[in-house]
C-alpha cells in the first residue's frame, strides 16, 4: 500500500472513524482502523462489532493494498501534522507516515484480522433527508432505556411507512414519539429497533442538508451519504405496543410557557429526593402549583400561571423526566394533558398559528404514586 493524501482528508477520515472504535477492548484489532487503498481513494473503517463506520476519502494511490493501524494514535498524529501532503506506505505489518520532515512508523495488524462490515445493499433502500433523520433522533433517542433487562427498550423504534417516518423511544416510565412526513414510497411499513450508539454516529457524521440512504441486510442496517457509511446491528425482538399506551381520553389540559415551567421544575428538583426526584404538581384554574417535600431535607413551593381546562388535579412526577422532556420541546409553549393521578400525562409542543408542518411530537410520562 502506498498513497499520498492531504492532511485535511487524512484527519477528516480518521476523526470520523476513530470515534467509533472502542476505548477498551479485549480484541486488539478493534482499536485499529482498517485502511484500504484502491484506485478510487482510501477507505477507512472502524467498528466496535455493534456499530461500524466507514469513510472514503480522496487520495493519490500508487499501490493498492490494505492494513490496520492504531486508530487513536494516528488521529493524534494527524492532528499535529503540518499542512502538507502525507505519504503513507506499508512495510509488512508496519505503517509508515511521512509528512514534511516528520516520519512515523507504527505497528499494525494484517487486514484479514479485521471484522468484515456487513454487506448492506443500498440499491433498494429508503431515503431520508439529514434534517428529518437528525430531528427524529434528537427528539426521541434520549428516552431509550439504559437498563439491561429489557434489551428491546435499549433501542429506538424506527417505523417507515407510506408517507411518514416515525421514531419512538421509551424506558417504560416515559416515552417520546415523533412522526414526520416523508417522501412517499411504495414500501410496506417496516420497523427497526436501532441501538442509540448507531444513531449517535448518524448525528455526528451526517449534515442536515445531506440525503441519507438507508439499506437493510438481515439484522443489519446501513446509513450512507456521500462517502460516509454507518452500519449497525439491529436489536431483535418485537417492540411493545406503544400506540396502546398513548392516552386518548385525557381531559384536563394545561398550556404553559415552557421556559417558566422548566425553571420552576429545576428549582423544585434541587430539594427533591436524590433517588426518586419526586415533585408534586397541583393544577387548578389559571394556576399550577409545584411542591416538593423531602424528609430529612426540607420542602419547596412554586406557582406558575397556566391556561388550564378541566377538573382540579394533583399528580406526582419524577422531576428528572419532566426536565428531560421539556428540554427537547422546541416551542415557547407546551401543552400538558392529564386524566388522573395514576395515568400517563402527555406533553407536546404548541405550535404557533400557521406553523403546521405535519410534524407530530408527543411525549408521555408516567406519574409517581403520591403518598398521603
Amino acid at each position, binding site marked *: 500500500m502506498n498513497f499520498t493524501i492531504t492532511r485535511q482528508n487524512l484527519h477528516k477520515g480518521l476523526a470520523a472513524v476513530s470515534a467509533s472504535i472502542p476505548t477498551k477492548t479485549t480484541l486488539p484489532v478493534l482499536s485499529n482502523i482498517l485502511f484500504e487503498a484502491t484506485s478510487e481513494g482510501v477507505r477507512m473503517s472502524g467498528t466496535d462489532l455493534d456499530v461500524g463506520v466507514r469513510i472514503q476519502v480522496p487520495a493519490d494511490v500508487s499501490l493498492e493494498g490494505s492494513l490496520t493501524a492504531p486508530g487513536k494514535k494516528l488521529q493524534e498524529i494527524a492532528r499535529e501534522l503540518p499542512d502538507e501532503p502525507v505519504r503513507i506506505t506499508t512495510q509488512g505489518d508496519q505503517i509508515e507516515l511521512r509528512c514534511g520532515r516528520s516520519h512515523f512508523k507504527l505497528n499494525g495488524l494484517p487486514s484479514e484480522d479485521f471484522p468484515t462490515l456487513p454487506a448492506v445493499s443500498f440499491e433498494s433502500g429508503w431515503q431520508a433527508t439529514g434534517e428529518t433523520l437528525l430531528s427524529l433522533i434528537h427528539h426521541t433517542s434520549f428516552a431509550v432505556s*439504559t*437498563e*439491561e*433487562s429489557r434489551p428491546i427498550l435499549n433501542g429506538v423504534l424506527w417505523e417507515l411507512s407510506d408517507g411518514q417516518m416515525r421514531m419512538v423511544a*421509551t424506558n*417504560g*416510565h*416515559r*416515552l417520546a414519539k415523533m412522526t414526520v412526513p416523508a417522501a412517499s414510497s411504495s414500501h410496506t411499513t417496516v420497523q427497526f429497533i436501532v441501538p442509540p450508539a448507531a444513531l449517535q454516529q448518524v448525528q455526528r457524521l451526517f449534515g442536515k442538508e445531506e440525503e441519507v440512504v438507508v439499506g437493510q441486510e438481515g439484522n443489519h442496517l446501513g446509513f450512507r451519504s456521500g462517502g460516509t457509511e454507518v452500519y449497525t446491528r439491529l436489536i431483535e425482538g418485537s417492540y*411493545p405496543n406503544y400506540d396502546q*399506551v398513548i392516552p386518548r381520553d385525557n381531559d384536563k389540559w394545561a398550556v404553559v410557557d415552557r421556559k417558566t415551567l422548566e425553571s420552576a421544575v429545576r428549582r423544585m428538583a434541587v430539594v427533591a429526593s*436524590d*433517588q*426518586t426526584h*419526586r415533585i408534586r404538581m397541583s393544577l387548578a384554574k389559571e394556576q399550577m402549583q409545584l411542591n416538593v417535600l423531602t*424528609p*430529612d431535607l426540607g420542602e419547596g413551593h412554586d406557582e406558575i400561571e397556566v391556561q388550564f381546562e378541566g377538573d382540579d388535579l394533583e399528580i*406526582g412526577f*419524577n422531576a428528572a423526566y419532566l426536565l428531560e422532556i421539556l428540554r427537547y420541546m422546541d416551542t415557547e409553549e407546551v401543552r400538558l394533558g392529564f386524566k388522573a393521578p*395514576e*395515568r*400517563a400525562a402527555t406533553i407536546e409542543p404548541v405550535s404557533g398559528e400557521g406553523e403546521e408542518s405535519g410534524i407530530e411530537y408527543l411525549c*408521555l410520562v*408516567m*406519574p*409517581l*404514586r*403520591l*403518598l*398521603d
Partner: protein
Amino acid sequence: MARTIEVLPDAVANQIAAGEVVERPASVVKELVENALDARAGRVEIELAGGGKRKVRVADDGLGMSREDALLSLDRHATSKVRGTSDLRALKTFGFRGEALPSIASVSRLTLETQADVAEPGTSIRVEGGRILQVRDMARTRGTTVQVERLFFNAPARAKFLRNTAAETRAVSDAVGTLSLAHPGVAFRLESEGRVLLDLNAASDLPNRVAQLWGDRAAEELIPVHGEGEGFRLVGLVQRPDAARPGFRRTALFVHGRPFREPALIRAGDRAYRTTVAPETRPWILLELRVPAGSVDVNVHPTKAEVRFQNRNAVEALVERSIREALEGEASAATMDQDLPLPHVQVRERSPAGPGDGGGSSETQMALFLRGDGAPGPEPGQEVDGLVPEPAEPPRLWQVHRAYILAEVRDGLLLIDQHAAHERVLFEEIMRSFDTGGSEGQRLLFPLTLRLPAAEYEQAEALSGLLHQTGFEVEGFGGDTVIVHGVPAPHPNFDAERSFREMIEELTHGSELVRSARNQHERVAMSFACKSAIKAGQTLDEREVQELFDRLFATELPYHDVHGRPTVVRLSSRELERKFGR
C-alpha cells in the same frame, strides 16, 4: 413439755449460711476479693493449692482492719458497710450482709492477718470451724491477708460436691478474670501451685484489661459502648460485628463493679446486633451499669449473682440503644488491620521519586528543583492529627472491580461493598417509609404481567399492602397471574421484574435472611433491600458513587449490611505504614 424450738447457736447458723454463700473455692475467692476491692486495694494476690480445696490465700494492700474490727468481721452480720435498712438500698460496696467471712470461717481453717494503721501492730487471728483459736499481734504492712485452708473439713457432705482440682482452678480463674474486668485499675495476680495463672498489672482502662486477659487481638475486636438514660449509665465493650462468631462467647455484666447474671440484658444486647450479624452469631458483650441509688436490689441472692432492677425494661432499652449506637460508629467497621507486629525495618527515605521510578524503568526523571532538607512541612509519620482540624474536603472515591468503592479518608482507606452498602441504604429507607405510609412507586407505561407459582401468587396477594408501600403496585389478575402497575426506582439500572420475582420467591419459601426478621415489615424490607440493591458488576459513575457513599453514611448502621456482613472494610494509615515498614 420440753421446748422444741431453739435459737441456733451462731456456729450452726454460720454453717447454714455458708451453705448459701460458699459453694466452692471460687466463691470463697470471689467473696474475699470483693472484700479486698471494698477495702480499696490497689493490688490483689491470690494463691491456690489443690484448686483452692486445700488452700486459698487472698492478700491485698487495702485499708486493713483494726483488731476490734477484725474480730467483729468474724461475727455474723458484723459489717462495716451497712448501718440500717436505708443503707441497704443505697449500696455501693460489695459485701454488706456480713455473712461472708464468718461463713467461710465456719467451714474451714481460716487465718486473718491485717493491719490498718502503722501506729498500731497488726493482728493475726486463727479460726477453725468458726471457733476463734488464737489472736495475736504481728508485724506486717497495711492490708489484709486471708488464708483459708481445708475448706469444708467439717462439712464432708459439701466437700463431696467439689470437683476435681483442674475444674475448681478454672472456676477460680474465671471468677478472678471477671472481677478484674470490673476493676481494670487494680492489679491482680493468681497463682496455683506455684504456677502463675493471671498476672495483671493495673490497666488504664477496660480495653487494656481485656488485652491483658485475652490478648491484643480480642481487645481490637471490641468497640466501646456508652449510654445514659433515666439515671442509669452504661459503659462497656462489645464485639465488632465482623469479628463475632457463632458458638463461644464472652459476656459479663457488672453493676457498680459487681458481676451479676441477667440473660435478659444479654438478649437485649443481641437485639441491638439485629441485621448486623448473622442470626446464629453470638457477639461478646461486656457491660458495666451505674444505677441510681434505690433502683436496684442486689440482696436477692446470697452470692449476689442476681440483681433485681426496679425498671428492667428501661435497663434493657438502654442496653439495646447504647449498643446500637456503638454499632453506628466507624469503629464497628470490619478492618484489614492485623495485630501481628511486622518486623520494623528502618528505611531511609529516598529523595522524591520521579515519574520514571517505580515503573521498572531505569531512566529517572531529572528534577528541576531539589527539595532542600530543611523544607518546612510535617515530617512523615509525625503526629499532626491532633493539631489539624478535620478538613472539610470530602473523601476521594473510586469504584474498583465494579463491585467496591475505595474511599480515601483521613486516617486510612475504606473499601465499601457497593451491593451491601446499597442494601443497608434501601433497608433503612424502606423501614422509615413504612412509618410514613410507604415510598413512591413509578407507574409503568407497560405494566408487567407475571405468572407465578400458586404459593407465590398467594404470598403476593397476601403481602400486596406491604409491597405497595415498597413501591410495587401489584394487582391479582386471577389464575396465577399478577399485574405490576408500578415499581420502585431504587437505582437507574433497576430490573423491576427480576427483583420482584426474587423477592416473592424469598418471601414465600423463606431464607436465612428473612428468618432473621422480627416482623413482617422487616421481612419485606430485608428482602426488598437484598433483591433491589445495586449488584456487583454494575458500573457506577462518579456521581452515583458519591451518592451511594453519602447515603450509606446517612444511615444508622453504615458499617453493616442486613445479612450481618460488613459493608465497609477499613485499612488504617497506621497499618499501611506498618506493612511498608515505614
